[in-house]
C-alpha cells in the first residue's frame, strides 16, 4: 500500500483531534506518515504513533511559525517530492486549505476540499463532500497527480492502531517566497472549559433573539448542563455579543453534532450551511413561522428566556 502523508495540526506539539481523524482515514487508503511542522515534535510522537503513523517527517524550522502558509507549503511539497505519496491529507482549516492549494499547484495535482469522508476507490481515494449549504452530497476523486484532500473535522471517529513511528528530520530548502508574508504577532484564542465547537457532541447556539451579550449566560447554562459547546449566529457575533470563533455557518464553523439546539435563530440559509447535517436539531423561537422550524426534530414556539431556564432546571433535575 502507498504512503499517505498527513499534515499534523498542533499547538506546540499538542496534536489536535482532526489530525487523529486524518490518520484514521489515511489507514483506509494506505500507510499513514505524519508531517510535523514547527516545534514540539517530541511531545507529539507518542500520540501520532498511537493513531497509526508509521513515519513522522519533522521540519523544525523557525520559518514555519514566523511566516504565513508558504513555509508549510514548501515543507510539505518537498517531503511529497521525496516520498511520492499515494495521497496527501490536510485538515480543512484556513492554513491547511491554503497549504493544500499551493502544494496542488506546485505538484500539478488535483485538490478536493472539505471532504466529510474518504474511502479507497478503484481510481484512488474517493471523497464525499457536502455542498450547497449541505443540500447535496458529492462523490469525487482526483484524476491528476497526487490526490490532495482537505478533510473537515469529525469526518471519522479516531481509532487507535499503535505503531512505533520512525522519526526522520527533514531540512527544507525554503523558496524565495517563503518569507514573503510575516506573522508579526499571534494572540492565542481564549481557552474555555467547554468542548470545542467542531468536536462537541452537542452544540447550543444563540442568535439575535438572545438580545445582548449579558444574556448569553442563558445559552451557556444550558450548554453546561448538557456538556455542550456554545455557538452563535452571525447576527449575534456581528452585534459583538459572542466571539467570532463561535460563529456557526457558511463563514463561521460548520458543525455536525449529535444534537444542535438553536435558540432565537431564524434559520437563514447561511446559518443552515453550518448546522443542517446535525443528527438531531431542536429550535426554540417565538415566531412559529421561523424557517428553522422546517429543519427541526423538535421545536418549541416560545420565549427563549422562559423555555431555556426551565430546560436547564429540568436537565439538572433528571441527571
Amino acid at each position, binding site marked *: 500500500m502507498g504512503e499517505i502523508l498527513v499534515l499534523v495540526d498542533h499547538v506546540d506539539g499538542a496534536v489536535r483531534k482532526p489530525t487523529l481523524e486524518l490518520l484514521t482515514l489515511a489507514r483506509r487508503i494506505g500507510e499513514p506518515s505524519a508531517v510535523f511542522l514547527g516545534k514540539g515534535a517530541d511531545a507529539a510522537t507518542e500520540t501520532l504513533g498511537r493513531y497509526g503513523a508509521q513515519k513522522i517527517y519533522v521540519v523544525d524550522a523557525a520559518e514555519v511559525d514566523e511566516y504565513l502558509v508558504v513555509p508549510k507549503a514548501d515543507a510539505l511539497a518537498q517531503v511529497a517530492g521525496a516520498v511520492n505519496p499515494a495521497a496527501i491529507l490536510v485538515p480543512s482549516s484556513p492554513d491547511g486549505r491554503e497549504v493544500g492549494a499551493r502544494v496542488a499547484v506546485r505538484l500539478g495535482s488535483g485538490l478536493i476540499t472539505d471532504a466529510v469522508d474518504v474511502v479507497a476507490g478503484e481510481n484512488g481515494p474517493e471523497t464525499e463532500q457536502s455542498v450547497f449549504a449541505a443540500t*447535496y452530497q458529492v462523490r469525487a476523486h482526483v484524476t491528476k497527480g497526487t490526490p490532495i484532500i482537505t478533510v473537515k473535522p469529525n469526518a471519522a471517529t479516531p481509532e487507535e492502531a499503535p505503531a512505533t513511528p520512525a522519526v526522520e528530520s527533514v531540512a527544507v530548502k525554503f523558496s524565495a517566497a517563503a518569507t514573503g508574508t510575516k506573522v*508579526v504577532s499571534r*494572540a492565542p484564542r481564549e481557552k474555555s472549559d467547554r468542548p470545542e465547537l467542531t468536536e462537541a457532541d452537542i452544540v447550543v447556539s444563540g442568535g439575535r433573539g438572545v438580545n445582548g451579550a449579558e444574556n448569553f449566560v442563558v445559552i451557556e447554562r444550558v450548554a453546561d448542563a448538557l456538556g455542550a459547546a456554545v455557538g452563535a449566529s452571525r447576527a449575534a457575533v456581528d452585534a459583538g455579543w459572542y466571539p467570532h470563533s463561535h460563529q456557526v455557518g457558511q463563514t463561521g464553523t460548520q458543525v455536525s453534532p449529535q444534537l444542535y439546539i438553536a435558540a432565537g435563530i431564524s434559520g437563514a440559509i447561511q446559518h443552515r450551511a453550518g448546522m443542517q447535517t446535525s443528527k438531531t*436539531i431542536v429550535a426554540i423561537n417565538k415566531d412559529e413561522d421561523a424557517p428553522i422550524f422546517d429543519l427541526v426534530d423538535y421545536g*418549541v414556539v*416560545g420565549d427563549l428566556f422562559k423555555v431555556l431556564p426551565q430546560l436547564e432546571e429540568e436537565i439538572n433535575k433528571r441527571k
Partner: protein
Amino acid sequence: MKIVVCVKYVPDATADRGFNEDGTTDRESVDSLLSELDEYAIEQALQIVESGVEAEITYLTVGPDDATDALRKALAMGGDNAVHVNDDDIQGTDALGTSLILAKAIEANGYDLVICGMASTDGGMGVVPAMLAERLGVPQVTYLDEVKVEGGVVKGRREGDTATEQVEASLPAVISVTDRTGEARFPSFKGIMAARKKPLESKDLDDLGIDSDEVGLSAAWSTVDAATARPARTKGEVVTDEGEGGVQLATFLAAKKFI
C-alpha cells in the same frame, strides 16, 4: 497603482441549487449573481482608494456570458473598469484551472494588489487566492478581517487556525478579505448609470495565451462521480410553550438519551 478585484458570478445561494448530469453546476434553472462574499473585496478596494492611495480599480471575472452582470454591479459600486474572461472551453474548470486563467489575466492587466473574497458562495473552497499568489509568485495575505495599505505594505488581521494573527507583506501581493471587514455599500442610482459607461473588456483563452486543453471539464484535475440531493429533513413535532415548554423539551431530549 493597480488594484485587481476578482469577483465570481454564482448561482443564488437562497435558491434551490443543483447539478447537471456531468456533475457541473446547474446554472440554467437558478438565477446567478455577484458572490456576496466578493462584495467585501470590492468594498475594501474602494476604501483603500478613499483612504488616499492612488489606484485604478479593475474587476476581473471568469464566467459565462451573463457574468457581466456581476461586473456591472461591481462597477456600479465604484471602480474604473472590468475584464470578463469568457470562452466555451472554460465550462467545468476546477480551482487549479480557474486560478491559471485568473493569473494570466491579472498579469496581462498589470497589478500591485489583487483582492479576492474569502471564498465563493458556490464552490466555497477558499483556495483560489493562495493559488493565485503561488502562480504569480507574490506574497499572500489572506483571510483578513481587517486590511490596511500604507507605503507599499499591506497589513491585516487574520483569524488563523489556533490564534489571531497580525500579518503583513510588501506589494505586489494577493489578499483575501472576510465578511468581517465591514458591510459593502449599495450601488447608488448615479453609480448604476455611471457603470454603464465604464469600459468592460471581454477576453477569451486565445487572448490570454492559454491552450484550451489546459482548462475545462476534460482537463480538470478532479472529477465528480456522483452528486445526490440529501433527503430534505422531515419536520418533527413543534409545540407551543404554555408554561411547560422547557419540560416538554427535556422529555424529548431524555427520550433521545441526551440527558
